[in-house]
C-alpha cells in the first residue's frame, strides 16, 4: 500500500503550516519527500524561485534530535554550514547568532549527552536555522519531550518564528499543538494518506497561552477531532503503533 495517495499541497512563503494526522498516515513520509530523503514513486516536489547562494532549500528538525554525539553544541550547529562550504569564521559567526537565538548561549562547548531533552532540541533547531533554509521542516520536534517542556518549547519556537518569519512545515499528531502553532492545519487521512481538509486557524499573532481557551481555538480543535476520530479508531484497531 502506498504511504500517500493523490496529495496536492502548496505552502506559501512565511507560512506556518501544520501537517496533522493519525499514526501511520504518511505525514512523516510527506516531510521526507520535501526534504529529498525519500524519492516519490509518482509525482514531485517543487520550490518556486531561484535558489539563493549560501542558502539551503530545506533543513530538517528531527523527532529524536539526531545530534552528533561527538560534536559540541557549536560544532553541531556548524555541521550544515560545513556542508554548504562556508569558511571557518563565517561558520562560527552564523553558529553563534543561532545559538543566541535559540537560547543556548553558554552551552557552546557542551556535548549533547550533557544537555536535557529541551536543550538538545534547541540545538537541533539552531542547526537547521543556521543554514537559512527556504523551508524549515519539523518532524514532531517536541513529541519526545515531557509535557511541560513541550509547552515551553512551543512558545519559544513561536517567538523564533515571529523574529525570523521562516516558512515552516510542522508535522504533529497533537491537535492542540497544530492549532496553537500554525496558520493553516492540513489534516491527513490514515494510510494511504489523503488530504481530508485544510483548516485556517483564526487566531491572531503573536500567539499566547491565553489563546488556548479562546472559542476560535476550541472550535478548530473540535472540528479536527471529529474529522480524524474515526480514522484514529480504525488505526487503533489495526494495531498500528
Amino acid at each position, binding site marked *: 500500500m502506498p504511504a500517500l495517495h493523490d496529495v496536492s499541497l502548496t505552502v506559501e512563503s512565511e507560512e506556518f503550516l501544520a501537517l496533522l494526522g493519525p499514526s501511520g498516515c504518511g505525514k512523516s513520509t510527506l516531510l521526507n519527500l520535501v526534504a529529498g530523503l525519500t524519492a516519490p514513486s509518482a509525482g514531485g516536489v517543487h520550490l518556486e524561485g531561484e535558489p539563493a547562494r549560501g542558502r539551503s532549500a530545506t533543513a530538517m528538525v*528531527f523527532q529524536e534530535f*539526531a545530534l552528533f554525539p561527538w560534536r559540541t553544541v557549536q560544532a553541531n550547529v556548524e555541521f550544515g554550514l560545513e*556542508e554548504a562550504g562556508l569558511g571557518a569564521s563565517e561558520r562560527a559567526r552564523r553558529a553563534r547568532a543561532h545559538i543566541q537565538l535559540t537560547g543556548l548561549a553558554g552551552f557552546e562547548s557542551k556535548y549533547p549527552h550533557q544537555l536535557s531533552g529541551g536543550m538538545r532540541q534547541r540545538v537541533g533547531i539552531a542547526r537547521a536555522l543556521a543554514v537559512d533554509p527556504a523551508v524549515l521542516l519539523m518532524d514532531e520536534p517536541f513529541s519526545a519531550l515531557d509535557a511541560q517542556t513541550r509547552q515551553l518549547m512551543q512558545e519559544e519556537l513561536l517567538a523564533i518564528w515571529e523574529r525570523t518569519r521562516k516558512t515552516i512545515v510542522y508535522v504533529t499528531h497533537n491537535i492542540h499543538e497544530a492549532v496553537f502553532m500554525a496558520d493553516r492545519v492540513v489534516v491527513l487521512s490514515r494510510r494511504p494518506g489523503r488530504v481530508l481538509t485544510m483548516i485556517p486557524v483564526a487566531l491572531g499573532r503573536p500567539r499566547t497561552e491565553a489563546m488556548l481557551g479562546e472559542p476560535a481555538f476550541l472550535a478548530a480543535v473540535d472540528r479536527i477531532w471529529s474529522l480524524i476520530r474515526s480514522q484514529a479508531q480504525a488505526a487503533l484497531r489495526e494495531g498500528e503503533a
Partner: protein
Amino acid sequence: MSTRLPVPDRTRALERRGHPVVRVASLVTLVLLWELVTGTGWVQPLFLPSPLDVLGTGFEMLRSGELVGHVITSLRRIVLGFGLGALLGVAVGLAVGFWSLAEAVGNPLIAATFPIPKIALLPLLILWVGIGEASKVAVIMLGVFFPMAINTFAGVRTADPLLIRAAVSFGAGRWSLIRKVLLPSALPMIFAGLRLGAGTALLLLVAAEMIAANSGIGALVLNAQNLMETTKLMVGIVLLSLLGICSHWLLARLERLALPWRSHS
C-alpha cells in the same frame, strides 16, 4: 495491635566496592611469596631467580647498554607493524562498511584468510621479503590488520541510521559521511580493536624474534634460556609485561583524548 515490618534492602548482594587495600596487597603478596620461595633456597635460581636478583641483573644490563639495544629493536618492530596494520585495517574496514561492492569483494577474502595463525606465515614472509626487519614488521602488521578491519567494519555497520539521514539532509556527500559520521561512530569499536591488536602484536613480536632474530626481547629470552641464564630470561619476561602494561595505558589515554564525548563528567 498492628506490627511494623522494616523493608529490607534487597540490593545488598549486588553491591560492589572498590577494596583499594586488597588491590595493592594482592600484588605485594605475590612478589613477597616469590621472594620467599627463592630467597630461602627452596626453589633453585636456575628454575626461578629471586625478584631482587632479576631487578639487579636488569639494572646491570641497562648500564652495559645490552638492554637498550634489544628494547629499541623490539619497539621499532612493534610500533611500525602495529601502526601500519591499524591504518590499513581502519581504511579497509571503512571501505568495506560503506561500499557494498567493497564488502562483496573484501568480506569473503577476510573470512578466508582471518583464521590462518599469522605466525605460520612468517616462513613465507621471510622468503618474500628476507629475514631482515621487513618480515617481522609484516607479520605483526598482518596480526593487527584483521581485528582492526573486522572491528571497524562492525563499528560502521552499527552507525545510527538517523545520524546518517541527518547528515544527508544537510547535504553531506560520501566523504563527509565517512569522515564525519561513520568514522566517529566506529571509533569505540576501533579502540576495542586496537586493544585486541596490541595483545596480538606483542605475541607475534616475541614469536617472530624467537624464530628468526638475534636481537629484540624475544631473542634475548631465547638466548638466555640456551645459556641457562634464567635471571636474564626473567628480565626479558618482566620487560614484556611492562611493555604490555605501557601499551594498555597509552591506548586508554588515547581513547580518552579521541572520545571526549564519552567521558561522563
